[in-house]
Structures are given as C-alpha cells and as structure tokens.
C-alpha cells in the first residue's frame, strides 16, 4: 500500500530536521577542538616566520605536562658570586652556556682574578663576563684525566692519575707539586635562587613552542585520549561537511525560480 503525499512530506520534514539537529549538535560539540586545530595549524604554517622552533617554553604548567624538571643532584661551585654548574653535559657560568669539549666538570674556583673551570681534559679561564680568556689544553699536554683541583698558598693545583701538578699565576707552566695534603675544591650547597636559575636554564632550552603546537594539533599533549578526541572531532567535521552538503542539496530542491528572476523557498 502506497503512503499518502502528506505522510511522505511529514517524513521528509522530520528527516531534514534530524539532519539539522545533528549538524548543529556536532558543530557545537567539536567547536573548541576545531578552533584549536585551526589556530595551531595556522601558527605551524608560519613556523619559520614566527621562529617557533627557536622560542622555548618557560611556563611551568606546560613544562609539567611534559614532565620536564632539572635533575636534583647538580654540582654547583661558587666563584665570588658567580656560579658554575653542569646540566646534562652543558656547562653554565651563571646564565651563560660555555661551549667546550673538555669532558665533565671536575671543579671550579677563583684564582688570580680569573674564574677557573676545571674539566676532565681541559681548564677554562673565564672573566666575570663569561668570556673565555684561555683554554689550557691547547698548549699543555699534561691536562688529561684531571681528577681534582685545589687552591693553596697562591698555587692552583690539579691531580691527574700520574701526578699532582701546580701552576703559576698565569697558568702557563705546570710543574709537579711538592704539596702533599690539602683540601680539594668541592661543590657547594645550591642556594634557592641558583636552583631557580638552574631550573630556568634547563627548562628554557628543552621545549620549543613548535613542539607544543605540533602536540596540540595532533592532540598528543593530552595523551592518548587527546589523540582520540582529535580523531573524533575530525570525523565529526567530515560528517558536518556531508550533512552541510545534504542540507544544501535539499534546500536547492525547495528553491523556486520566479519569472522576474527572484528566488523563493517552497516548502514541500
């Protein structure tokens, strides 16, 4: 038995309303995620202009999402108000990174108005502006596998596996040291303000804004759940595209062209 035209129309109307309803609800549900995708996508498109890979995140709450925090056991040396420390093989003099290839930090101390940083295979002399005055391994072959360093009686002394050596005030000549016992330079307790400095230096170069935006764009910043939410939102966006097209097609069917060229919507 064929259905009546009025029943068919009612069914069609209900169907259209359902499409509208779903289109609207999906749109409202994924609104925030789509905005996030659009904004992060645009920012990533202009990554080079915005230099996002060279700007680093310093916001604690973002860094804590990534679980980034400086190691607890860092050896710090005080040099008359300046601090020397090493984080993950990167040497710092206060806030300045010191480039070197002399191995790990052994000790540091103030001697002859110079900041002396003793590394396993090198000794760096810095001024208070963190400028490198000299690097002693260039001209002194004895500076290898340094185990410890100390200052006593106007002598700077280093200990290697073979011998104990001392130098003059200019750090040019190294001769075997007759001094037998003294205390070696050792790390100091890290004050709270230096700890903050260390945290900032460690975090400051660890996470770029590009990384954060990429993770935000993919949803990974919120873990696996975030990825699934972005997936579902993408599917929702696709559904909205289809429902939008469907509604447009239906609407076109209802448009009646009048003689004078105007359009009017005809309710079927």
């Amino acid at each position, binding site marked *: 038995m064929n259905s009546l035209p009025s029943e068919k129309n009612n069914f069609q109307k209900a169907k259209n309303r359902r499409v509208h309803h779903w289109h609207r609800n999906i749109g409202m549900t994924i609104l925030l995620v789509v905005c996030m995708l659009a904004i992060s996508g645009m920012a990533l498109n202009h990554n080079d202009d915005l230099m996002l890979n060279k700007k680093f995140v310093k916001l604690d709450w973002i860094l804590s999402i990534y679980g980034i925090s400086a190691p607890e056991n860092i050896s710090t040396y005080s040099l008359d108000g300046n601090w020397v420390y090493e984080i993950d093989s990167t040497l710092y003099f206060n806030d300045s990174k010191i480039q070197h290839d002399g191995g790990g930090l052994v000790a540091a101390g103030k001697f002859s108005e110079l900041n002396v940083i003793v590394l396993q295979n090198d000794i760096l*002399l810095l001024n208070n502006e963190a400028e*490198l005055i000299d690097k002693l391994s*260039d001209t002194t072959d004895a500076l290898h596998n340094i185990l410890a360093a100390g200052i006593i009686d106007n002598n700077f002394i280093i200990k290697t596996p073979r011998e104990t050596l001392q130098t003059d005030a200019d750090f040019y000549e190294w001769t075997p040291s007759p001094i037998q016992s003294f205390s070696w330079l050792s790390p100091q307790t890290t004050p709270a303000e230096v700890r903050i400095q260390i945290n900032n230096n460690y975090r400051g170069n660890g996470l770029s804004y590009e990384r954060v935006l990429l993770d935000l764009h993919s949803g990974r910043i919120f873990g696996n759940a975030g990825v699934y939410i972005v997936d579902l939102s993408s599917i929702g966006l696709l559904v909205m595209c289809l429902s939008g097209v469907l509604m447009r097609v239906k609407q076109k069917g209802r448009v009646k062209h009048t003689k004078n060229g105007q359009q009017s919507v005809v309710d079927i």
Partner: protein
Amino acid sequence: MIRFYFIVFFTFCFVVSPCVARSVYQTPKDFVSKAFLGTPPAPKTLWLTKQYSPTVKKILGHQYIKKRIQYWRMNNKSVWILEEIGKEKTITLGLIINEQKIQQLSVLIYREKRGDEVRHHFFTRQFDNAKITKDHELNRYIDGVSGATLSVNALKKLARLALYLDSQTDE
C-alpha cells in the same frame, strides 16, 4: 680467513673511524718544540684587546674564541697554536710564520667526524709561503676539498689570522 680480516678491516674503516671524534695528530707542545728544533723560546702572550677586535672579526666573521693567545717568537719566526670551529667542533692548528710568510701549517687536533682530509700534506702545502694582503686576504687561491668545505674555510681563516697577528707582534 682472509675474507674475515677484510670484513673486520672495512668495518673498522667505514664504521669505527668516522666515530672517532677527537684525533690528535701532533701535540701542540711537540709542534712548538719541533718548530724551534727542540729549543723553543719562552712563550709570549697576546691579549686580543679592542685594538685587534675589528680586524679579527673581519677575518673570522666573529671574535676569536679566546681573549689570550700564547705564541712563541724567535727573530723573524713565530709559532701560533690557534683554534676555529669547522662545522660543530674546534680544529686546532699549528702555524709557523717566517718572514711574514707561512712556513708550515699543520692540523694538530681534529675533532669533527668528517672532513679530516684537510690534515693531509697535499692540502696544507698549498699554504706554504702564503702571505696576507692589505685587505687581510691570502695572496693565493686555496683549492677546496670536496665534503670538507667548512674545515677548509676554518683553515683559511686561521692562516689569515696567524699572518695578521704575526704582523702585529713583529719585533
């Protein structure tokens, strides 16, 4: 068995060798000693003060890595141990300047993973007798080495720097 030794040899050449980050071909002390036939004079110090900064920056493209340079001089001969970054790591050079010309340029320590061809004599001999012009350029063209462009550039810069510093400390 011979095949096995071949495999071991080529594995070493192609896998292990490039991973050796720091190659000391000659110690600076040995270089200085040989430059003065075993009896080097007492070292002298050159402080790179503001007087030298503009020219040093022009030659290197940046300030020298250190503020204090140790050198050795006897009559018209001076010996310099200088460093410059090739691609990522520093290359240590020994230079003998005699009568304001390069007598010898040697790569003493090479720390980069690739490009150590610049240490060979076929390349370094190009610098022999090179002088510096008024514009602080070398007075001759130095052929490059394929795959070691940055190291070649570093050597050329240090050659110019050594000639400049020699001219500034000439007695």
